[in-house]
């Protein structure tokens, strides 16, 4: 059995470049890594590294209902991806009672931003970046005014989620999203570490130790209020 567990750990490193934070339930926290493209309704070509939402969502359910798991650390290094899948993960994280802390390492771009802010407390590494930019349509586009309205509606979902789950003002977010001159070939804004905190998108600058400390605090506060049911 131990040999199996060891083999599984080795495979996890080989296949995903990640190790299991939890060994046999000894760690009270689980770690969810959101990497590469967030894959939605379409299976992306194998060149992409993807986070598959149909796996992440039941994992979140399991974390929420397992009494041994006291908290969840969400580590993001994502370039964005499917809006529906990203918002689904973000909504799941937001609605969890289990304390959640997110940490943006490297990048938490596009649809990664709502996932980062969905946690109870969010951190960004000093050198990590978050790109805020408009949503756009690709492929065959029917040139009718309704297409624009649809696009606007999709964008509004993302904006509203971010505004409701962080300290950022809606005007600031919109201004950053449509800013010109920051990105070479695009409109939008790149926020590096401290800047993301200054505009109110992320709660604090930090690394893994700050994130784990914050989880300890959130868990202690929750258990102080009568613990988990």
């Amino acid at each position, binding site marked *: 059995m131990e040999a*199996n*567990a060891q083999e*599984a*750990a080795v495979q996890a490193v080989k296949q995903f470049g990640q190790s299991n934070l939890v060994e046999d339930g000894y760690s009270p926290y689980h770690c969810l890594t959101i990497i590469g*493209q967030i894959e939605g309704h379409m299976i992306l*070509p194998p060149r992409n590294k993807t986070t598959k939402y149909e*796996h992440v969502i039941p994992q979140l359910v399991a974390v929420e209902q397992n009494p041994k798991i006291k908290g969840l650390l969400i580590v993001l290094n994502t370039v964005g*991806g*499917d809006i529906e899948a990203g918002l689904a993960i973000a909504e799941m994280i937001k609605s969890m009672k289990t304390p959640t802390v997110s940490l943006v390492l490297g990048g938490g771009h596009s649809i990664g931003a709502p996932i980062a802010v969905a946690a109870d407390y969010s951190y960004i590494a000093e050198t990590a970046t978050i*790109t805020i930019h408009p949503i756009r349509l690709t492929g065959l586009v029917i040139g009718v005014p309704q297409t624009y309205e649809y696009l606007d509606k999709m964008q509004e979902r993302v904006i509203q989620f971010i505004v409701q789950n962080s300290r950022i003002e809606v005007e600031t977010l919109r201004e950053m999203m449509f800013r010109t001159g920051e990105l070479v070939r695009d409109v939008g804004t790149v926020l590096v570490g401290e800047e993301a905190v200054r505009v109110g998108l992320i709660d604090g600058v930090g690394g893994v130790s700050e994130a784990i400390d914050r989880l300890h605090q959130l868990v202690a506060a929750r258990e102080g209020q009568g613990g988990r049911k």
Partner: protein
Amino acid sequence: MLYTIIPIEDVLEGLDESPPPTVDVAVHGVLLQVEPLTHFSGRVQRLISSDPQAYLNPQYQPGTILHWT
């Protein structure tokens, strides 16, 4: 609908290549979609279960190599 900083042509490159065939295997009551590697092993592609705890089991994670006899 994708919302990403990667250009769409890069994301979709190779989209017309069909994914490897899979077979469905039930392991301890959990249905796994497995890409066969040899006659006796395969790589887990997808996990289909209504038991959320199964999704935390490292042996069912996509990418895991399964061996059977």
